């Protein structure tokens, strides 16, 4: 297992070395490549549009971390549930949500995945079992565990995948939740998207236990450090954890080591890290890795690869077009979706 320190990427993953003995098929690699490329280009575009002030709010990009959602999506089953924090653009894309309705949500349009009410931090897609997009750091750890509770209650063999940042693990509710999840053997997989920074604060600066895989040890939660720049490693770890959950043996904690190439949000001067550190991580890029594997195995011709590029480009362009041509929600929408009770008596003074 390639384990790396939090601040520098693995040196043990040689270029292409995973590929030659990989148990994964051409189809899987092509799917990873397409999904990750779509996420990357969607996020590139999102960043550009944000700078052009096409929409407001906060904007947290997933660029660099794509292998985590790609490997999770390929390892999970259709009935499984997914929940994450505000860095949530990539998860629904990996789960198959149409990027058009995601872009429309960024634009605050009524056609968006949350009807323009949630914005960047609050993507939801019930059809794909994507249960948000949550802006309060750590809230999803607890709620996601409740989702697992209900799956167990209903006797399904579905698993809840709950993602959180390395900063989010510092919320005390994590410990309350881990204890109950272990005690009740809930079918949940905790995914730390460990990009080593919570805004400007590195993992080392907030803890004396920098190995986040140890956080569950006082509850004897099985855990693992995973190379988050490789979808293969993520897939295997997720599969193993999900199998454990489906067997009724309870939760797993995965400390998935990754890196965000961009700032925390679009307004982050990034003085807390060096350009060299960013560059070093970028040499481990998961998309380039998959491309190399595909090319070395001659699975796709250059023409076929170009077709993928063109498809991605079209998806992104059409998303923007769709968003820009969609209407904003009308004022009355403010009074809809607040209560299930449709005739709730709001105080209305105008």
């Amino acid at each position, binding site marked *: 297992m390639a384990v790396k320190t939090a601040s520098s990427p693995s040196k043990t993953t040689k270029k292409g070395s995973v590929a030659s003995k990989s148990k994964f098929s051409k189809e899987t690699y092509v799917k990873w490549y397409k999904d990750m490329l779509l996420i990357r280009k969607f996020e590139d575009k999102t960043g550009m549009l944000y700078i052009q002030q096409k*929409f*407001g*709010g*906060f904007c947290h990009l997933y660029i660099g971390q794509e292998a985590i959602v790609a490997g999770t999506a390929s390892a999970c089953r259709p009935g499984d549930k997914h929940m994450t924090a505000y860095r949530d653009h990539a998860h629904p894309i990996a789960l198959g949500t149409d990027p058009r309705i995601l872009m429309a*949500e960024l634009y*605050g*349009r*009524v056609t968006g995945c*949350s009807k*323009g*009410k*949630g*914005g960047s*931090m*609050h993507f939801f897609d019930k059809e794909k079992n994507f249960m948000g997009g*949550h*802006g*309060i*750091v*750590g809230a999803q750890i607890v709620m996601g565990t409740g989702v697992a509770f209900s799956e167990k209650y209903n006797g399904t063999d579905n698993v809840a995948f709950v993602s959180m940042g390395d*900063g*989010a693990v*510092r*919320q*005390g509710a994590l410990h309350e939740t881990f204890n109950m999840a272990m005690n009740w053997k809930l079918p949940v997989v905790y995914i730390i998207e460990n990009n080593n920074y*919570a*805004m*400007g*604060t590195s993992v080392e*600066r*907030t*803890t004396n236990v920098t190995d986040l895989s140890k956080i569950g040890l006082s509850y004897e939660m099985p855990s693992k450090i995973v190379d988050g720049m490789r979808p293969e490693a993520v897939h295997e770890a997720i599969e193993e954890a999900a199998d454990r959950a489906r067997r009724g043996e309870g939760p797993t904690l995965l400390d998935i080591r990754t890196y965000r190439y961009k700032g925390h949000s679009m307004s982050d001067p990034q*003085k*807390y890290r060096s350009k060299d550190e960013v560059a070093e991580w970028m040499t481990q890029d998961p998309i380039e890795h998959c491309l190399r594997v595909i090319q070395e195995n001659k699975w796709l011709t250059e023409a076929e690869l170009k077709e993928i590029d063109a498809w991605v480009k079209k998806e992104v362009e059409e998303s923007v077009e769709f968003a820009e041509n969609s209407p*904003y*929600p*009308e*004022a009355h*929408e*403010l*009074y809809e979706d*607040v209560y299930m009770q449709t005739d709730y008596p*709001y*105080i*209305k*003074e*105008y």
Partner: protein
Amino acid sequence: MKTVQFREALREAMSEEMRRDESVFLMGEEVAEYNGAYKVSQGMLDEFGEKRVIDTPIAELGFAGIAVGASMNGLRPIVEFMTWNFAILAADQIINSAAKMLQMSGGQYHCPIVFRGGNGTAGQLGATHSQSFEAFYAHVPGLKVITPSNPYDAKGLLKAAIRDNDPVVFLESEKMYGDKGEIPEGEYIIPIGVADIKRKGTDVTIVSFGKIIKVAYEAAELLEKEGISVEIIDLRTIRPIDYACVVESVKKTNRCVVLEESWPLASISSEISYHLQRYAFDYLDAPVMRVTQTDTPFAFSPTLIDEALPNIERLIKAVKSTLYRN
């Protein structure tokens, strides 16, 4: 006088008090090395060192509670919350511990502590990141609650809050940190619990607080052109409320509109309206009106934000209705 940004006024207040009193320190997320998420504490780590300007993990309940304990034991913490929305996680320590300590201990332990940070809406941040907490915290006996609306008030009131021996909830705004205003070169303190008449007028009193008061300034200018003279009261402190200032003004104008950024139910506008009907009943020539946010969570889309927030048109309409004009 000199011109400073709101954030600089806050920083001056904290730095002056920290120079004056060793027991004052600042803690919160990103306050030290990052110089503050909104740059309020810029440079303070350099001046005071990491013993007194302390970065915390994302653990609001934990660090707020540590600060409460420290305050019981003689220190005077300033706790910065990145925004007050995140302080909901710390509400247990603010409400159950800090607010109650003095009484529960029969006067033995008190909590000289300031909880401060951005409050209210700040653009397209969605429902969880857009809440105003004046009414929430004003509800709790044992707390003092302050909402400044300009750099001058911010500095003077924050200094008073830091020197105060009771727990103070200090509500700022991400949208105000860049606002500029004049403050004196030298030291000054503004007492807690004293409202400020920001504009003198004779026809209608508008009571407001925090950044939404700017809507009242603009409305007053427009109304003046129509011959309507508006008096604007900035409460500045929400607990205790300077009721006397409001009542005195309404005795003169006989009309009142309360302008509030947050929701209508159980709000500061409800409170002011109650007080006026109780203590200025005979002076009122029209029902007290209010302009608040709609009775709905704050949504992301700009069209929904426009609908939700108080605006000039609604305020002018409310003012005119107290004058039976349209």
